[in-house]
């Protein structure tokens, strides 16, 4: 029980020193000392409630993914069957109730049509994306499979998360945390950012940019009533533009989408000193843009962002260099935001803010300062009480407690765990449990001495008998922590993580480390008496 082979001693000391070393950068930063940059310095992340900052939770509009998928499938079906040789003629192509259906002109072509559609239906991945049925001999019905839809949503969410990350990185804030949460949510935390408005307007923009020709044949009276000429659609002006509140008609086809951009920069238009966004197309996009402008000199085209018209300037001359300028009553700030959004790409889904929070930096700093002070004074009192109650063994327990706190910080730093206010509660509970383990052991040793056992035997029995209760108590706490982590959210999880790590370090220090020290003392001093 009290024998420790040499290798075990070395190993225990090594573990302790490593963990303590890992805690140093955190302690340095909390106490305001500058940590030398040459040394590795993993630190405990402070949660927003401690560090101050903004957090928002975004939810994707997944029905949009389903709708877009349906629309593009409809296009694909039309294209594939038209391009088949000889072309397969169909009619009555429509998508409704989440499925696509069409009628074959020639019922004998069923097998050929099925053959042509197979690659579309199967998709590129391992899951089949659509179910294909033929009813009444010549009507095809395509329904999206559950797996296919899920995969599409998952892909869209991956892309969206990536786009969000790029946009936030462009803000230049330090260490943002961007995590996909669940199937359709993205959680964004930006420490130190006290104005969430910028964040929200940056992420609220889908940034789908389109250039479409204005349908000059449309009658103003029709537009007001929302009636568009065939092949055109009505698009409203964006709020904040001079023509806000009115709409224009644009040609549905033949436009250019802004997803072939290589760059976007905010700048100022020289003559009017208006804020604008300079964009650069890639080669293919530049060529399309040159063709469109060359063929339509003198006609107006609309610059549409997220389904709203920014401006509709006339094309004065062909724009050949692959560069263009977007104007639309911007301020320098909003132009810069649009540039960032365009650079990082369009979001594949609309994101809505469903939860947000901001903690002022003063509050966080205040919480930390006062929390640390209270914990230090409280801990000091506990150390004194333990020393006065258990004498030498109490001092070992105290040393173990200090090592435990350092180890807990060290492990949390190494795993880049985030410490939140509830996490501090986990911390307090851990300290309580660590003290309790030593109280249990020492009380037991007291009892055994009272019953007349000799010092070494009493200590051995004390450790052995107390270990059982310590073990059971900690296992139940591990169970609680694991379940909290699995089912809980937010702060509850933060609490669970600290608790889990704390249970391991407190058992290690309170039971194993103190035993090592006590055993060393017993061997050296061979005491006949024990003041306990």
């Amino acid at each position, binding site marked *: 029980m009290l024998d420790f082979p040499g290798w075990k001693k070395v190993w225990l000391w090594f573990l302790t020193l490593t963990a303590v070393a890992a805690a140093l950068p955190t302690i340095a930063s909390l106490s305001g000392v500058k940590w030398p940059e040459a040394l590795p310095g993993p630190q405990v992340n402070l949660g927003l409630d401690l560090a101050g900052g903004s957090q928002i939770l975004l939810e994707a509009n997944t029905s949009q993914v389903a709708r877009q998928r349906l629309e593009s499938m409809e296009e694909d079906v039309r294209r594939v069957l038209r391009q088949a040789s000889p072309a397969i003629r169909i009619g009555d192509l429509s998508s409704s109730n989440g499925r696509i259906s069409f009628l074959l002109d020639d019922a004998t072509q069923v097998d050929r049509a099925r053959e042509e559609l197979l690659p579309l239906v199967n998709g590129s991945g391992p899951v089949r994306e659509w179910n294909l049925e033929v009813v009444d001999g010549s009507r095809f019905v395509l329904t999206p499979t559950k797996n296919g839809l899920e995969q599409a949503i998952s892909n869209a969410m991956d892309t969206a998360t990536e786009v969000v990350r790029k946009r936030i990185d462009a803000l230049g804030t330090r260490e943002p945390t961007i995590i996909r949460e669940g199937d359709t949510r993205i959680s964004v935390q930006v420490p130190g950012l006290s104005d969430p408005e910028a964040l929200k307007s940056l992420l609220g923009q889908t940034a789908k940019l389109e250039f479409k020709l204005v349908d000059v044949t449309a009658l103003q009276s029709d537009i007001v009533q929302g009636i568009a000429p065939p092949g055109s659609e009505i698009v409203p002006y964006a709020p904040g533009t001079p023509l806000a509140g009115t709409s224009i008609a644009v040609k549905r086809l033949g436009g250019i989408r802004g997803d072939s951009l290589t760059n976007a920069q905010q700048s100022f238009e020289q003559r009017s000193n208006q804020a604008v966004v300079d964009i650069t197309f890639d080669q293919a996009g530049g060529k399309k843009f040159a063709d469109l402008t060359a063929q339509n000199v003198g006609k107006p085209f609309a610059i549409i962002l997220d389904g709203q018209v920014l401006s509709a300037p006339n094309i004065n001359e062909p724009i050949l260099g692959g560069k263009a300028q977007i104007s639309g009553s911007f301020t320098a700030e909003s132009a810069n935001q649009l540039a960032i959004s365009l650079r990082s790409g369009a979001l594949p889904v609309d994101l809505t803010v469903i939860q947000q*929070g901001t903690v002022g930096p003063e509050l966080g700093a205040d919480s930390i300062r006062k929390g640390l002070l209270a914990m230090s004074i409280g801990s000091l009192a506990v150390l004194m009480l333990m020393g006065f109650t258990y004498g030498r063994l109490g001092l070992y327990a105290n040393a173990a407690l200090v090592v435990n706190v350092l180890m807990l910080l060290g492990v949390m730093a190494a795993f880049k765990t985030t410490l939140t206010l509830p996490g501090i509660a*986990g911390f307090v509970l851990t300290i309580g449990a660590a003290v309790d383990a030593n109280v249990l052991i020492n009380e037991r040793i007291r009892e055994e001495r009272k019953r007349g056992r000799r010092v070494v035997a009493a200590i051995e029995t004390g450790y052995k008998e107390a270990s059982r209760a310590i073990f059971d108590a900690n296992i139940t706490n591990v169970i609680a922590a694991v379940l909290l982590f699995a089912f809980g*959210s937010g702060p509850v999880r*933060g609490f669970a993580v600290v608790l889990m790590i704390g249970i391991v370090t407190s058992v290690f220090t309170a039971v194993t480390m103190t035993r090592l020290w006590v055993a060393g003392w017993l061997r050296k001093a061979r005491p006949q008496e024990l003041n306990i």
Partner: protein
Amino acid sequence: MRLLKLVPDDTNIHFLKWRVPFYSFSTLLIVASIALVLIRGLNLGVDFVGGQQILVTFTQSKEAPVAELREQVAGLGYGEPVIQIAGAQNEVSIRFPLPEEVAKNPAASDAMTTKIVKSIEAEFKDARIDDLTSVSGKVSGELFSTAMYALGFAMLAISIYIWVRFEWQFGVGALFALVHDVSLTLGMFALFQIEFDLKIVAAILTIIGYSLNDTIVVYDRIRENMKKYRKMQLPEILDLSVNETLARTVMTSLTILIVLVALLLMGPASLFGFTAAITLGIFVGTYSSVYMAAPILIWLGVDSHSFVPEENVGDKADALARGEA
């Protein structure tokens, strides 16, 4: 140096003698707490009901001008806000339900926040906005249910573990003690209408963890004594075990209370409600381990043979129960 002894060596208090009055009293408290929660309800924070919460500190004043603030904010046309002192006397939390139109237009909530903040800043020069939170009804419902599931599952799983390690009676006893602690804490929250948010769930979990620690220490000693003194009657064994572990119970409660009281007196105001909940819970938890978890074993009929291996029966459950597995 003479060492400190918080509990004299030959302490022998007959805890069990008082079990009927204590039990009746506690059961009454549990029922009253549940009734309080049902009738008065918990003062759920924005985490759980959705809405907006703004935390304002008045840096130049000792006391927040609550009445003026209420008048100012209510005049904005978003209805009557809930304004409460949050922690220190110069800190207030202002709560509003989210506007109806938020479902269709998420920007409505932002516009509302901005308007409220601007109006406060204009009217009160020393107001510092510390915290802005807005939670949609959808998320808040989920937060509440996941928190409750987490609590429920944790309590259940712990009881099952104790059942496996000890005996089913002990599992039931521990569960009863946990229910006691949780319902009394909730009852206090309902009585004083302290704001109940996600942080408080963490506080309740801390209480559960602590109370459980206590219960298990007592149970472990009961198990040990049942093996040691086979002829002894159960009430005596229970009394003996509680007395033997009393020094430890007092010492541990004292140390954790020291840390908590330090946090209460000197810690950040934002932690006050949270720390207060844990502090009260420590008392409740200690009490329940001694007066709830142990006496219930008598009524549940723990057999002192439970932990004594029958002859020639070396089955696994027994080995496990003896803590030798």
